[in-house]
């Protein structure tokens, strides 16, 4: 996975990491959204396999998870989407995001094998703490499949060191307490991110509360990636594909102010 996710963009820029829920709001819409994200320069994209109890997600993603399940989105359809987009956009690192029970029911080894076979390079599992992660990480190790660890800002130094030790792919730094979808004071995360960066050569991505181009700009020079989740799906919900395109153009302009693609 490390071959796909690099560290530190050129001076004055930052990578973009996007998020979608598999086949939500529809199979067509999610494919269009991914296309827009890739065109805007997203280099890592999370595909969330919906779960009935998404405890780290705020009200917007919670409702979206339940809606996706009600529409019949399944593990199999999530794999199909992964296979399709990872083949279409080989320059992008695609990772799964889900909750542990989805992975656990499939079996760690089977999940990893299927995820890799369909083009995923890692997974983000927010309710899998380090203390219980060994079996899943062992299953991933043989396939170079990363369990992307999450670091919270309330972690004491010893915890940061534990989490960084043996981490793979990238580190997901949560900008604030709480769940997805609320805003954050991103000025406050710089010290937290630099503490992580001093411990590792892996790239550091910052998520939770990155909601605009201005937010992305604030992270330049501190984080390697800005993760945009809830705000992105909300842009689609409010403005359709056009609004979504405008939103990602704004993010793109903020992320690479000097060398914008036309």
């Amino acid at each position: 996975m490390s071959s796909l996710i690099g560290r530190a963009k050129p001076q004055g820029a930052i990578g973009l990491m996007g998020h979608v829920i598999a086949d939500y709001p529809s199979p067509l819409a999610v494919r269009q959204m991914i296309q827009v994200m890739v065109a805007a320069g997203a280099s890592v994209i999370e595909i969330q396999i919906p779960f009935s109890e998404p405890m780290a997600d705020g009200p917007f993603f919670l409702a979206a998870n339940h809606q996706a399940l009600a529409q019949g989105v399944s593990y199999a359809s999530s794999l199909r989407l992964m296979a399709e987009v990872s083949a279409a956009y080989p320059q992008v690192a695609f990772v799964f995001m889900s909750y542990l029970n989805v992975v656990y029911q499939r079996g760690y080894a089977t999940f990893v094998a299927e995820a890799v076979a369909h083009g995923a390079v890692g997974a983000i599992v927010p309710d899998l703490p380090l203390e219980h992660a060994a079996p899943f990480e062992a299953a991933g190790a043989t396939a170079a499949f990363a369990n992307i660890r999450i670091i919270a800002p309330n972690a004491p130094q010893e915890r940061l060191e534990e989490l960084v030790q043996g981490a793979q792919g990238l580190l997901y730094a949560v900008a604030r307490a709480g769940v997805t979808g609320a805003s954050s004071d991103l000025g406050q995360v710089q010290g937290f991110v630099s503490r992580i960066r001093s411990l590792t050569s892996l790239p550091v991505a910052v998520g939770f509360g990155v909601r605009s181009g201005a937010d992305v700009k604030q992270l330049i020079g501190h984080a390697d990636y800005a993760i945009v989740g809830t705000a992105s799906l909300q842009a689609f919900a409010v403005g359709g594909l056009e609004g979504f395109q405008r939103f990602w153009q704004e993010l793109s302009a903020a992320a690479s102010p000097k060398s914008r693609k036309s």
Partner: protein
Amino acid sequence: MPVQGLSNVMGVLAAAPATPLLPDSRGYFGSFGGAYVPEILRPNLQQLDQAFATARSDPEFWAEYMRELALFSGRPTPVTPLPRLSQHLGGAQLFLKREDLGQTGAHKVNNAIGQALIARRLGKRRLIAETGAGQHGIATATIAARFGMEAVVYMGAEDVERQRPNVFWMEQMGTKVVAVEAGARTLKDAINEALRDWATRHEDTHYLLGTACGPHPFPALVAWLQSVAGTEARAQMLALTGRLPSRVYACVGGGSNALGIYQGFLGDPQVRLIGVEAGGRGPASGEHAARIAGGQGTRGIAQGYETLFLQTSEGQMVDTYSVAAGLDYVGVSPIIAHLHQQGQLAIERASDSEVVAAVKLLMRFEGVIPALESAHAVAGAIRAAAQLAPTEQVLINLSGRGDKDIFTMASALGDDSWANFLRHKADAMMAAKTSAEVHHV
């Protein structure tokens, strides 16, 4: 002469806590349990785990807990023999452990008081809780009012509709009740929402989880605090009858009242421990909450812990159902799952109709109105009693009283005069409101 020995059979407060049921270093009881939470919640759980360890090693804590249980909740609660019902059934002698007589009318208050004491020691000023039937919510509301703490209770919107009287009282005591509209709108959704709150606001907030479920240390902590019922009941049975019951019945939702009573008898291999789950409209209906009985629950990890859940093959939790909101839960305590796996515990189920019949029998023969939740245990004991010899003694944990269920029961029994009463009350209230509005204009 008539009052001689009364203090014996009334029982005394548990002088010392039961030996705590503690998990391994990973928070596991056998192969169930753990602490599967987002990283942001880790410091909260660690702080609570330390406070729990401190409380266990501090006799002052237990003494303070007993004092509060006595002065605020009237402990010890008695064991009541049921001679007329036993005779009617023609088998074993039945007894009730009267957790329904505590403050707020259910065992939930024991845990609420204990955790509020811990929260106070930690300097927390705000309590949050989930509730199903509303009994844990109302217990939390009373202790928050008593300790001068702020309280927020998360309750599935479906349960808010089913248990309006409890919502009314919680709000009157100054607790904010948040109706959770997500998912199945029941207990599991309320737990998710409380965890989200706790992830957002930790410094001043204690999550007062109401049952022996969720991430470590909650199962061990709640079971420990609830052990008072079992410790008392064992001594009371000996004082009343000179011997132990041959069976102990408890209803099992999350599992806290069951673990509370069982802990008095875990060291007595001759006592059979039996849990009764919500059979709802039957195992084939899909409308039940029987996770263990019938074997429909499968191993999974959700709500912060590993246990047997009612779920799809892809790991999505399914909607559960019970006439008793407090048993309407998709998972079960990891300690219950473990004890069952070890063969220390049998699990049965009782259907809604058996439960309603049990409520009627207990009211008619003994003048006790059980909560629909607790009536599952009564139904299990009634089913068994007739097959047992009159020399056998069966103890039932009556975890709550049934006043809150008056709407549900009246509707289950098709009581027309109750429906008329409600219509008249509603008309009168609306008329009073309209006339007040007219006067304002």
